């Protein structure tokens, strides 16, 4: 029966003329059945709603052509039983020798009307209810060696919440009628896989149609529309669907189900189901069918493994201790915001707490530093171990879903495995959504980065030389400014000291800019980048030490800024300074080496940084330099001053994409 016409006509949208039928209501063309009304008409016959003499309501399909070859397909399906398939009862002949297919009468609406009711896409729960019911029915057909070949919304019905697939076993009729020039419902070609053009009718064409219908349910439109049959067919063959309206995991599923090459398509319905979020509770569209096809199960596992792995790597991106502290801080914030006190009292309390903290700083600061030290060690270890764990962790992750794979176990296992699938689906969806967001927001930046990568060596060298010259120029006034600040705090600035700062600052900026240029536009491997920076830092340290000797600079330590008072017990200052209180070579190497390692200096040289000279970045560098000096003694304020000079010089001298250009690119992107 053409269920397409069935349900569409019920909503009053049949093709013109479909309301006239050969057999009038009340007639009995087929012995034992009374026709109540015509339901619809397709290219291969008419469908009626009728009742048997015993009172059984049935759908009667009158098959206009009467070829044994064409009836064979129906006969093959006559004894298939599945809750998600429209039941076929019998094939009968009438007095005129016309053939009738007696089948289950489905009173509910078709997917076509359901889609029509939601022109901008159906609610997600509905989509899942339909697609899971369809998947179960199609999986059953495939498992019994039947390819539907004509899946389309008009053929999918809903009966009391159960999805029913109709018109299976009639594919040959349809292809015949099309060849014979009859006007088949245009709807069919919208769901036709490209390989049908080559006469290939594998189960992949059903998966293609499922992909199209999933797209249509989510967006309200089919992916390929056109004025003519030829245009739509051409689009199936050549055009790529626009998936931007879909979110994950649907985007991936539709993209994979609609692959032009049937061999690259999702291989089985069960594989598609594994990618889908679980059906909503309560309204399961039908018993999920689990075919015992080993090959399908195998593919399934791989897909699941990939998804799980993505999720796990994303999870490990967040460090648990930092997260706990962050959460704790937020809890305190929300608690504080919720405390019902006068703002004045609150401010007073805050002041008292801060004063108290300052007053007892000797008691808690060392504890804090010790904790930070331990955390730093933990963090470094974790950073080194985590990538190793990720790779070694893969095989068991692959193994576990394989063991829980829904395809291998009986229906009794359905519940838990569904949950697993649901969670995995949700997680993957979330991850993908986050990624999608990120990708959208930064797409022009990404594009720009590729242009950076593509720059020739000559271009890069030219830029670098310019930046280095600029750095030398910028470092001089900066060192003077820094010196003035330092003077205000503790020491007096001498000429040699200013020159020394300017020189070391310049070299420091160069040391940052050189590797940054090397990796410009690339994400780079964090480990390698940091190691390079360590080497650069050691070089700066050695140079700074040499210059200090050469210029005979004295770097008197002002006690209140250095870490002497705080951590003298933890770190042995004596190892870092000689008898005169001047830093040794070791102090230089340690200080600059670690200073370069702990911060992502290359970000300061990134042409896509948000502002050319960021005060915050500078303050951040200075703060870390100060913190570092608490562990590895270096005379202050010279250490932090240098960190500041290097940070600012790098930013000033490195190329930067101006705002106007950004806006233009962004607009071009949108």
């Amino acid at each position, binding site marked *: 029966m053409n269920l397409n016409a069935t349900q569409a006509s019920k909503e009053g*949208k049949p093709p013109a003329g479909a309301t006239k039928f050969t057999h009038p209501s009340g007639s009995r063309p087929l012995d034992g059945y009374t026709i*109540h009304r015509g339901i619809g008409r397709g290219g291969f016959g008419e469908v009626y709603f009728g009742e048997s003499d015993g009172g059984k309501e049935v759908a009667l399909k009158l098959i206009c052509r009467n070829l044994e070859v064409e009836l064979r397909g129906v006969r093959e399906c006559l004894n298939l039983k599945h809750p998600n398939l429209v039941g076929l009862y019998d094939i009968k002949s009438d007095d005129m020798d016309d053939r009738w297919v007696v089948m289950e009468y489905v009173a509910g609406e078709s997917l076509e009307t359901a889609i029509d009711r939601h022109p901008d896409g159906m609610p997600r729960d509905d989509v899942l209810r339909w697609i899971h019911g369809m998947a179960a029915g199609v999986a059953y057909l495939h498992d019994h060696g039947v390819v539907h070949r004509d899946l389309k919304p008009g053929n999918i019905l809903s009966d009391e919440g159960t999805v029913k697939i109709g018109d299976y076993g009639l594919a040959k009729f349809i292809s015949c009628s099309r060849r014979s020039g009859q006007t088949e419902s245009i709807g069919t070609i919208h769901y036709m896989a490209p390989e049908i053009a080559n006469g290939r009718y594998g189960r992949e064409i059903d998966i293609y149609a499922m992909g199209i219908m999933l797209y249509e349910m989510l967006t309200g439109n089919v992916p390929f529309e056109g004025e003519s049959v030829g245009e739509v067919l051409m689009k199936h063959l050549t055009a790529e669907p626009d998936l931007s309206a879909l979110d994950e995991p649907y985007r991936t599923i539709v993209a994979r189900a609609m692959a032009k090459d049937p061999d690259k398509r999702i291989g089985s319905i069960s594989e598609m189901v594994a990618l889908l979020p679980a059906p909503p509770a309560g309204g399961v569209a039908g018993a999920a069918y689990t075919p015992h096809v080993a090959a399908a199960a195998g593919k399934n596992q791989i897909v699941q493994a990939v998804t799980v792995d993505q999720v796990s790597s994303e999870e490990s991106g967040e460090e648990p201790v930092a997260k706990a502290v962050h959460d704790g801080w937020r809890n305190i914030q929300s608690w504080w915001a919720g405390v019902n006190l006068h703002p004045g009292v609150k401010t007073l309390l805050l002041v008292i707490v801060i004063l108290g903290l300052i007053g007892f700083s000797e008691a808690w600061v060392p504890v804090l530093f010790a904790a930070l030290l331990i955390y730093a060690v933990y963090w470094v270890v974790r950073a080194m171990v985590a990538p190793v764990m990720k790779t070694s962790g893969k095989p068991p992750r692959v193994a576990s879903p394989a063991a829980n794979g829904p395809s291998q176990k009986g229906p009794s296992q359905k519940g838990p495995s569904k949950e697993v699938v649901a969670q995995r689906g949700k997680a993957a969806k979330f991850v993908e959504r986050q990624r999608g967001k990120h990708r959208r927001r930064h797409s022009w930046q990404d594009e720009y980065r590729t242009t950076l990568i593509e720059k020739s060596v000559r271009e890069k060298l030219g830029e670098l030389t310019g930046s280095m010259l600029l750095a030398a120029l910028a470092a001089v006034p900066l060192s003077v400014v820094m010196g003035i600040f330092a003077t205000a705090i503790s020491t007096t600035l001498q000429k040699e000291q200013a020159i020394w700062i300017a020189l070391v600052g310049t070299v420091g900026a160069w040391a940052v800019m050189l590797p940054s240029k090397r990796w410009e536009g690339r994400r780079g491997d964090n480990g390698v980048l940091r190691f390079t920076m360590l080497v650069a830092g050691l070089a700066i340290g050695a140079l700074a030490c040499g210059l200090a000797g050469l210029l005979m600079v004295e770097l008197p330590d002002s006690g209140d800024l250095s870490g002497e008072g705080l951590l003298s017990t933890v770190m042995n200052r004596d190892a870092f300074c000689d008898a005169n209180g001047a830093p040794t070579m070791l102090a230089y190497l340690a200080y600059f080496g670690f200073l370069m390692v702990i911060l992502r200096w290359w970000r300061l040289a990134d042409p896509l940084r948000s502002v050319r000279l960021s005060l915050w970045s500078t303050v951040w560098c200075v703060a870390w330099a100060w913190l570092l000096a608490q562990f590895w003694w270096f005379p202050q304020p010279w250490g932090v001053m240098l960190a500041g000079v290097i940070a600012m010089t790098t930013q000033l001298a490195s190329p930067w994409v101006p705002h106007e250009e950004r806006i233009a690119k962004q607009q071009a992107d949108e």
Partner: protein
Amino acid sequence: MWVDGVGGFLTLLGERIVVGQPSTEGAVDLPIRADLSRRHCLICREQEGYVLEPVQALSSRTIRIDAQPIKGPTRLVDGNVIDLGQGVKIKFSQPHALSATARLDIVSHHKTQPTADAVLLMSDTCILGPNPHCHVPCKAWRRDVVLYRRDDDLICRTQGPLKIDSQATDGHATIGRNARIEGEDFAIRLESL
């Protein structure tokens, strides 16, 4: 009433409609295959409109209209959803402004006995046609078909040629209770129960 390509409609002409479970005695006008009482409620057409009267005021058989439980007779307005309890939900509508005829659509999965796509509580007129405010919307049709009552007769009226039980007439004819009405692009059959 069977409308080809559109649906089957249980058309009730009475002023007082008994809604309940199908029974062999046939006292139920609107039998619904559901866990209802034999006589669950009455829907009465009165001068100003329709009134729903619960038959038994049992707590286990509370009837709700738009989720509000009702105690006694209650006026029905267009768009009301009647919850008969036991999950049976019926939408009441009076689509056509000039006709008192109402339409009941069972929105839960239950079915009438015999199966129909909707129930028409026919007052004086019943309009089938391409517009959505018809009692039976038939989008593919070109013109309206109006069935109306005069005294005890049922009359069918439309523009264009009309065939009643294969007899050609002009667009205006009295029809029997088991008539087959055919037009250019439609076919309707009445079947008395």
